[in-house]
């Protein structure tokens, strides 16, 4: 590892990514657009510490440091992105979370392929096992309870946005609410669920 993963630097200067740093999968060409590169680098320098701290709640510190870098290369290769910082940060964290999820799965499937003796009567019971979940059972249960405990309309807004991918205006339409109310209920839902997350750690 190139960083000491347990030390999350608070100094933005140390967070700078040299552009020529070789990534795990840097074999793929990185788009040359210098303005995209510059944007992604600025985005990273602003949110890297936060991202690494976030990833350390999902994977080991060593893996978190690695996934931070991998996320950076993903975004570099991704091409154009919306240059609104909060939205770009969402995209970055989502990308990193997906990488963490793949990481868990890869490990689980690797283990399955190594441990499960083929031609053996042993039945694979752990294929939905905890190792490929992003979070432990307790955190999941806490979050599930918090969702169930949301007021009905707030929960409906959250579920339709989260699992049905409806936009706020679409939710406003199907629930006969104003778009502003939908945004307010989303904020309320997120606030309560994030409280469950801060309890969890």
């Amino acid at each position: 590892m190139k960083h000491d993963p347990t030390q999350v630097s608070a100094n933005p200067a140390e967070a700078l990514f040299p552009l020529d740093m070789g990534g795990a999968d840097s074999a793929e060409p990185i788009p040359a657009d210098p303005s995209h590169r510059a944007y992604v680098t600025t985005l990273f320098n602003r949110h890297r510490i936060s991202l690494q701290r976030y990833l350390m709640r999902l994977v080991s510190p060593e893996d978190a440091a690695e996934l931070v870098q991998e996320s950076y290369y993903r975004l570099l290769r991704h091409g154009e992105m919306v240059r609104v910082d909060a939205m770009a940060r969402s995209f970055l964290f989502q990308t990193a979370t997906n990488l963490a999820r793949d990481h868990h799965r890869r490990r689980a499937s690797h283990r399955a392929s190594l441990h499960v003796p083929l031609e053996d009567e042993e039945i694979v019971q752990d294929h939905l096992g905890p190792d490929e979940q992003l979070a432990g059972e307790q955190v999941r249960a806490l979050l599930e309870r918090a969702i169930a405990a949301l007021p009905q309309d707030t929960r409906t807004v959250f579920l339709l946005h989260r699992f049905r991918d409806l936009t706020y205006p679409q939710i406003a339409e199907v629930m006969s609410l104003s778009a502003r109310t939908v945004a307010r209920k989303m904020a309320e839902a997120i606030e309560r669920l994030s409280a469950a997350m801060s309890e969890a750690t």
Partner: protein
Amino acid sequence: MSASADDLQAAEWFAQARSAQRQPASEPAWLEWIEDDGHQRAYENCELAWELAAELRNTPRITALLAAADSLAAGRTASTFAARPKWRVPLRQIGLAASVVAVGAVAWLFLNRPATLEYATAVGEQHTVVLADGSSVLLNTDSLMRVEFSDHRRRIALLRGEALFSVSHDPSRPFEVRALQGVTTAVGTQFDVEITRAGAAVSVLEGTVTVGGAGIGTSAPAVAVAAGSGVGYSEDGGVSALRPAEVDRIQGWRTQRMVFNDIPLDTALTEYNRYTRTPIVLSDPALGSRHINGVFHIGDEAAFLSALDQGLHLKATRGDAQTVLQPQAGYHP
């Protein structure tokens, strides 16, 4: 525990960022806010809650809550439609009283001229499609689907491959999936339809669907299939007895995994080869009767071949068009 001001602000910023509207006006305020370490920590909790919630999609509790949310939304939609512009009513009355030609014209108006959209995936690709009614479809590898929605019905034609449907509840608009000569009809549920070599297979994960014939020549009555069950039907309209839904296989593919639970190798390879352009074949068909166990990430050829090597002592030889498996030299089972 009462929420701190940081937590409230974090949730508000988070909700605003997801409104999908560009908010360049608030950019300076955001950049100043997120600079603070305490604010970042509060915001991380929002992000964590949002991302981890995705993992709960299939738990029984969230599934039930989601169904309730769907029907709540559908119920309000129905009442919104009831209060639609009045001009529709006189048109409908005219339509009922009018000549055949006029009825045709009115029917055209009411049908809203359904828009037809097609979605396809390449070999090895999967894609989630969110439909206009909020239903979502996860298309598996090498699949083709046509979607035709109107005010009265939601029609899907699965032309190739496999799809998992999570249907928004709407009793006024049944959701019909046609595959070959059969139609699976649902109101709000989750089910999988796969076109196989032998016909089509339907598995129900949530709720109940009916499976019946669509072709004029098909007279088999519709079969009701509840959660946990499935049926198969052949191209000539024959419907199998009820059987268990292929829950493991479906939960596997939707999370990019193949679950092989003590099945013959040739069956496993047929499944594996759906996801690749360079299929794995056996040097000797007799090898196909050996059994295999394991969970594999779709697309992770190396892990799969290494398991075959270690477990079944089969050696892979990669060619341009296919990979051939043969027994390791000197190994005699």
